[in-house]
Each structure stands twice: as structure tokens, then as C-alpha cells.
């Protein structure tokens, strides 16, 4: 009698469904699938590139209307551009995470493919992680390109402490992905209202976490609320480290601890929330509910 084993006809794929090799193979396959889907829509690819440039340019030009030298290149204008660009980098990652990780789960729920995933032995965590990879690759490229564009247009952007800035960025991204997992959990529960909720969270972040202006511009009571949101410290620490200015919300050491804890804890917390909601959805039979 012949025993059928998974991937028995493949020379490259692992022979087991558990272990690091299988985990890695699943993640690679899922990531490849996500990247392939992304490449299948060239119009969307080009459009998102153009869109990002335009948003950065519009907000920078708007900021420069308050500058003494207008749109002329100057140190003051480079600082304004830096403020917008660095804030924008975190904004676009938060925004993309909400949609590509959080809201995409809803899309799969509508299409019925989320339910299908439970019929396969594939890791559910990898399913979420593969979406992170796409965000990292694509959004990362957009951020680098927009920073280069602004440097060319307005003048050199400030990079006061690049290694520490990168540390803050990486830890902030870990935390952001955790937020994305948590949002995916919420989306499973609220279903269609997830779209409105994603918009709401995006705009709350835009106002309270001050990615496009200094925290000092917010009224006192809003600054107090901002202090309760870890992402505010991510924005403040990342931006002020690269711009070489003093942080506004707390001393740098305190912000360092908050961002580190946020980056290390939030992914686990978010995933734990996601699994809880997923189990609840399975029990209720709403994994593929429209």
C-alpha cells in the first residue's frame, strides 16, 4: 500500500508539516503568493507610487506656505520637509498595516478563502506574517523613494542620528504590525463596519499622534490623550532623533523604553487577540460570513 505524504512529489518542499523548514516553506509560499498578486496589478502599483509622492508634495508645499522663504530651498524648509516626510513614513506604515493586514482579513472572510485556510494544515500566523512582508517591501520602497524625492526638491533632509532613528523605526514597525493583527481581530468581529473603523483609526492617528506637525501644535488636552498612545512616542522618538531636536512628549530614555516595549509586546498581544476572535468566529460559524 502506498502512503501519501504531503509534497511527496516535490523535491524542494519539506516532507513534514511541522518544524522550522515547513514553517519557512509555508511563509515563503504565502509571501510569494502575496507579492505575485501585487505584481498582477501594474496600474495599482504605479498609481500608489504616484499617490505617495503627491501626498508628500502637497503637505510639504502646504507647510512651506507658512515659511518666510516660501518654496525656496533653505534650512528652515528642509526642517519642515523632514517633519512631514518622517511623519509620513510612520503614517503610511500604520495606514497600510490597517488595510493590508487588518482589512484584508475581512476581504478573505467575504470571499470565503479564510474558511478554506482552516481546511489546510498551513500556519495561520504565517498567513498574517506574509501580509507584513508585502507591506515592508512595498511601503518601504515608497518611503525611501519619497524621502529621496523631497531631498531633491526641497534640500537635504536632516539625518542627525541614523542608527538610533532606524532602531526606533524598526521597533515602531513591530508594534504597528501588532496593531494590525489586533485590528484584524476587530474586523472579524465588526465585519463591514471595519472599513469605517479603519478610516476612523487612520484619522485619529493623524491628529493625536501628530505625524505631520509637532506635538506642541496640539491643544493641552489632546497632548494629554496623545501621551497614552504608544504610537505617539514612536513618532516623536523617530522624528526628533533624525532631526536632531529634543523629544516633546518625554525624555529620550523614557521614549526609548516605551517604543521598545511597544515593539516587543504588541505583536504578541495583537496575535493573541486575533486568535481569540478567530476561535470565536469558528465557533459561531462566521469565518466566511458576508
Amino acid at each position, binding site marked *: 500500500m502506498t502512503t501519501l505524504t504531503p509534497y511527496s512529489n516535490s523535491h524542494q518542499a519539506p516532507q513534514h508539516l511541522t518544524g522550522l523548514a515547513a514553517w519557512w516553506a509555508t511563509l515563503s509560499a504565502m509571501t510569494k503568493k502575496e507579492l505575485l498578486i501585487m505584481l498582477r496589478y501594474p496600474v495599482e502599483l504605479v*498609481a500608489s507610487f504616484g499617490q505617495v509622492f503627491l501626498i508628500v508634495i502637497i503637505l510639504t508645499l502646504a507647510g512651506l506656505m507658512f515659511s518666510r522663504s516660501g518654496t525656496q530651498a533653505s534650512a528652515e524648509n528642509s526642517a519642515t520637509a523632514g517633519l512631514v516626510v518622517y511623519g509620513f513614513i510612520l503614517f503610511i506604515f500604520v495606514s497600510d498595516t490597517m488595510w493590508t493586514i487588518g482589512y484584508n482579513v475581512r476581504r478573505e472572510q467575504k470571499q470565503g478563502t479564510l474558511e478554506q485556510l482552516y481546511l489546510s494544515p498551513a500556519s495561520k500566523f504565517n498567513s498574517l506574517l506574509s501580509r507584513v512582508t508585502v507591506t515592508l517591501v512595498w511601503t518601504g520602497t515608497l518611503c525611501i523613494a519619497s524621502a529621496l524625492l523631497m531631498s531633491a526638491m526641497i534640500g537635504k533632509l536632516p539625518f542627525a542620528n541614523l542608527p538610533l532613528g532606524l532602531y526606533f523605526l524598526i521597533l515602531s514597525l513591530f508594534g504597528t504590525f501588532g496593531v494590525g493583527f489586533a485590528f484584524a481581530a476587530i474586523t472579524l468581529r465588526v465585519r463591514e463596519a471595519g472599513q469605517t473603523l479603519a478610516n476612523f483609526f487612520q484619522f485619529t492617528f493623524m491628529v493625536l499622534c501628530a505625524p505631520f*506637525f509637532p506635538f506642541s501644535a496640539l491643544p493641552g488636552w489632546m497632548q494629554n490623550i496623545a501621551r497614552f498612545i504608544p504610537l505617539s512616542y514612536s513618532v516623536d522618538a523617530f522624528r526628533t532623533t533624525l532631526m536632531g531636536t529634543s523629544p516633546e512628549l518625554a525624555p529620550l530614555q523614557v521614549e526609548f523604553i516605551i517604543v521598545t516595549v511597544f515593539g516587543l509586546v504588541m505583536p504578541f498581544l495583537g496575535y493573541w487577540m486575533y486568535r481569540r476572535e478567530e476561535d470565536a468566529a469558528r465557533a459561531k460559524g462566521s469565518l466566511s460570513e458576508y
Partner: protein
Amino acid sequence: MTIVIKPTFAQKLSAVLAETRLRMINISRYPGQLALEIVIPVIFASMPMLLGRATAGADAGANFAANTGTTNYVAFLLIGSNIFTLVSNAFWHIAYWLRFEQETGTLEAVYLTPTSSLTLASGVAIYSVIRGLIAAFLSYIIGCLVFRVNPFQGDVLLALAFIFVGLIPLYAVAFLFGALVLKVKESNALVGLMQWVVSFLMGIFFPITVLPPFVKFIAWLFPPTWITNGVRSSLLGVGFFFGHWYFDMAVLWAFLFIAPLFSFAVFNRVERGVKANEGVGQF
């Protein structure tokens, strides 16, 4: 024997209003979305406002006046973001209507009825105008009240005239864009990009005089540029492109006559092509 039924004007009007009513009923089910539509322009305008205040401090108003022609940056930015809402609505609603009908296969069914796509598009446009205008007016007034600025200053009637005259060429451009969506079939990406292209060209948060000459010339070909500057000049006195309001208004009237004819011609051509290639109901 083929019987061709030509609908009367009253029947066409009935179809237009039915389409508008359908959209209105549909959107009334999503109050959260409607509330966000009012809040978003205020939040969006507050970004450069807060950035400018924080970076320029006490000189914010003076610097802004030197670059734009008015110290009232609150109203200047709110006008930009609210006209952006109108423009964005026009593009989203027309393009989405076409794409949604195409995806669900109902666009194909529309061609089997005596109703034309132009009739239904007019219904969608009326719905979009009502929704967009209510959201924009409320948002402008709320924004002005939040930032403690008088919303009714300057020549309000002239500003309204610029908006109402500009709406027809604006929807004509949106219809032209609908033809592109019908052809390319990627409405999300195209609308996402297009709304930012238009907002950049119309000078959502800045006067278009800061743009390079070639870009400025392209901006002048877009009706939203004339609406935005017309409203700003009427309310805030930043200066009409041609010195007097009636010259700028004349340009908008020229758009009003040319743009619909041009876009309908293009749309019909694309529609015929799509029908011939059996791409009407394509996902």
C-alpha cells in the same frame, strides 16, 4: 422583427431620479460614513494649519499672506479641502458606479434596457452633487467654527456661483475619467491617484502660482482649479487669475459648454469599443 423603444424625456427623467433615489437610500444605511465625510476635510485642513502654526509661530499669518495673499489661512485651507471633497466625490461616485455595475454584471443588463448609461450617470451625478455639497458646506462651517473664523465673509453669493457653474464641467471630467475606468478596469487605483493629481493641480493648500510654468498651464485646463480660486478670491480676496471675477467665470462657462460634449464623445467611443470586445461585464 426588432422593435426599438425610444424613451420619452419624462421616462428618462424618471430613470434619472430613480437612480438618485436608489443611491440615497443606499447611503442612508451608512451614517458613520456620512459623518466621516464631514469630519475628514476639517482634519485634513488642520494638518498644514497645525504644522504652520508650530513652525512659524507668531509669524504664521504674515508669512502665509506673503505667499498666498491672505492672512486667513484657516478659511484658505478649509476651502481647499472642501472643494477637494466635491472633486473627490465626483470621481469616486462616477467611477465606482461604473466599476461596481461592471463587477456585478449589471452594467451588461443596463445595455439590454432602453435606458442609456448617460441617463443613469446623470442620476448618480445628482446624488453625488447633493451628498458632496451637503458634506462640504457642513464641513466648512464646522471647520470655521472650530478654528474660530467667520465662515460668511466676502462675497458668498459669487463663491456659490463659482461652485454651481463649476459642478457641470467637473462631472463631465469625472465622466471622462469613468471612460478610463471602463477601459482599464482598476477603479480603486485610478481614482486614488487621480484625486491626488487633481488636488495637486487645483492647489488644495497652496496657490498654483508656486507651481512650475508647465504644471501651472496643465492646472489651468482643470475646472476644479478655477472653482477653488474663484471661491477663495470671492471670499478672501486672494485675486482672480484674470483680474476680475467675470473673466474667470467666463472661463468656467467655456468649460461648461466644451467639457460635457468632449467627455460624452469620448465615453461613447470607449463604450462602443468595450461593447464590441465583450468587456462590459468583465470582472
